[in-house]
């Protein structure tokens, strides 16, 4: 009987903990969004966040996108050649990058680079009492630390996604024209003709959602970190895991919303 009860108790505890965390994250998100719209506004913090999340992520986003676009072109060429449809490479590279790979890979790169950095920074601030110091200096930590980062991510990650999409398509273009014998002018024309505005818009919306997820997870786990170096490490790890899983789940939901008709 005890053997039966103990596993159930463990499942119950985990379920309760998960539900409590979901509730806390929801309240945290509501708090973060509320603070974005309520003064005072910390412009300098916002600009720093724009720089860190956007500008400084460009190299990693660019590298990821160009290699992915190139690999995509090779895979599509190889796959489509089995039924003599090699000509679809520009179209599939474009749609694959813009609709799926661009936003998802940029989201995951932002989760790796930005979420971890935000979580580690805020967690360190917490264990060194800097968060308490903010409060005693009449500055709300959510307003000063979370709101600028979340707003910056919501605004700048779509730009990163747009850049990633273009670089990814360019990666495909380089491989297709340099290695697979495609005509450059035809490749560009086919890409441009095939892509629709809704593809680009859905890509940017996904970017904004993934940016928001990445920043919120970083801030949430940072603010709720445990003590000491272990607490900071745990917060950083959990934030990246949560952000990556939520980005992939949100991608599925958004793809279902935009394209499942």
């Amino acid at each position, binding site marked *: 009987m005890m053997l039966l009860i103990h596993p159930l108790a463990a499942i119950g505890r985990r379920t309760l903990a998960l539900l409590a965390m979901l509730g806390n994250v929801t309240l945290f998100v509501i708090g973060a969004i509320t603070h974005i719209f309520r003064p005072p506004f910390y412009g300098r913090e916002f600009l720093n966040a724009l720089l860190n999340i956007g500008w400084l992520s460009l190299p990693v986003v660019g590298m990821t996108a160009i290699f992915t676009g190139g690999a995509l072109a090779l895979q599509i060429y190889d796959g489509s050649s089995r039924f003599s449809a090699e000509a679809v490479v520009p179209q599939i590279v474009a749609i694959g990058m813009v609709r799926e790979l661009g936003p998802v890979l940029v989201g995951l790169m932002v989760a790796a680079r930005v979420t971890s950095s935000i979580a580690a920074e805020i967690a360190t601030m917490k264990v*060194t009492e800097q968060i308490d*110091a903010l409060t005693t200096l009449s*500055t709300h930590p959510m307003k000063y630390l979370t709101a600028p980062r979340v707003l910056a991510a919501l605004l700048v990650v779509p730009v990163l996604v747009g850049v990633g999409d273009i670089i990814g398509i360019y990666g495909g273009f380089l491989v297709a024209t340099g290695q697979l014998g495609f005509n450059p002018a035809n490749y560009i024309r086919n890409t441009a003709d095939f892509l629709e505005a809704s593809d680009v818009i859905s890509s940017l919306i996904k970017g904004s959602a993934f940016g928001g997820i990445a920043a919120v997870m970083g801030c949430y786990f940072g603010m709720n970190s445990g003590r000491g170096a272990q607490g900071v490490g745990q917060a950083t790890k959990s934030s990246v895991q949560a952000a990556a899983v939520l980005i992939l789940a949100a991608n599925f939901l958004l793809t279902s919303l935009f394209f499942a008709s």
Partner: protein
Amino acid sequence: MITFQDVHKSFGPKKVLRGVNLDIPKGTSMVIIGGSGTGKSVALKCVLGLITPDSGTIMVDGKDATQGDRDAFLARFGMLFQGGALFDSLTVWQNVAFRLLRGSLKRPKHEAREIAIEKLRRVGLTPDVADLFPSELSGGMQKRVGLARAIAAEPEIIFFDEPTTGLDPIMSGVINDLIREIVVEMGATAMTITHDMTSVRAIADNVAMLHDGVIQWTGPVSEMDSSGDPYLTQFISGSADGPIEAVR
């Protein structure tokens, strides 16, 4: 000025404060002593609202500390944290002038910088440290910067959390003297938590000993050595023998 009335606080099954009653008169310097983990920092953080007590009341100037305008309430306080708690991403002067660069006490940037440099001078630091980052300073200098930040907005009440922890005896003496001078000069009400008896003697007007979640003894610092309280006597003497259990 600050009154604790039957304040309780637990963390899970651990009861840290079990009914703290204490009165800190205006313009005096109260030092709370006690062993590690006895709840000194918790008591201090309860006043500032960083931790919410489970029960009991904390009054500041006769008003419940949890009621009213939070910003106006906190604007009356300055605090020196144990590790300094300086913001790594800001320069020294921006740390000191943090409160003067934003919120209700906001001043023009050049004015805030001048005040910051003046406060740095007051704690014995030269203006050339103003543009350094906290990581470029020694522990003692960081403490001084923390002290300058605590007094930058000329608060009525200043809290000092373990002000001499991690400092050598000479630097500890310097910080103790600074605290005493500044508190007297500003006429501020001070609450310090420490287990450094040299600090106690240098800073305190009154002393309270927190043990087992309650105030075991309180009185003027001049009566501390002759109190006859076995807990206080053991703590002052640093003896392993006495009513306070020493974990070996």
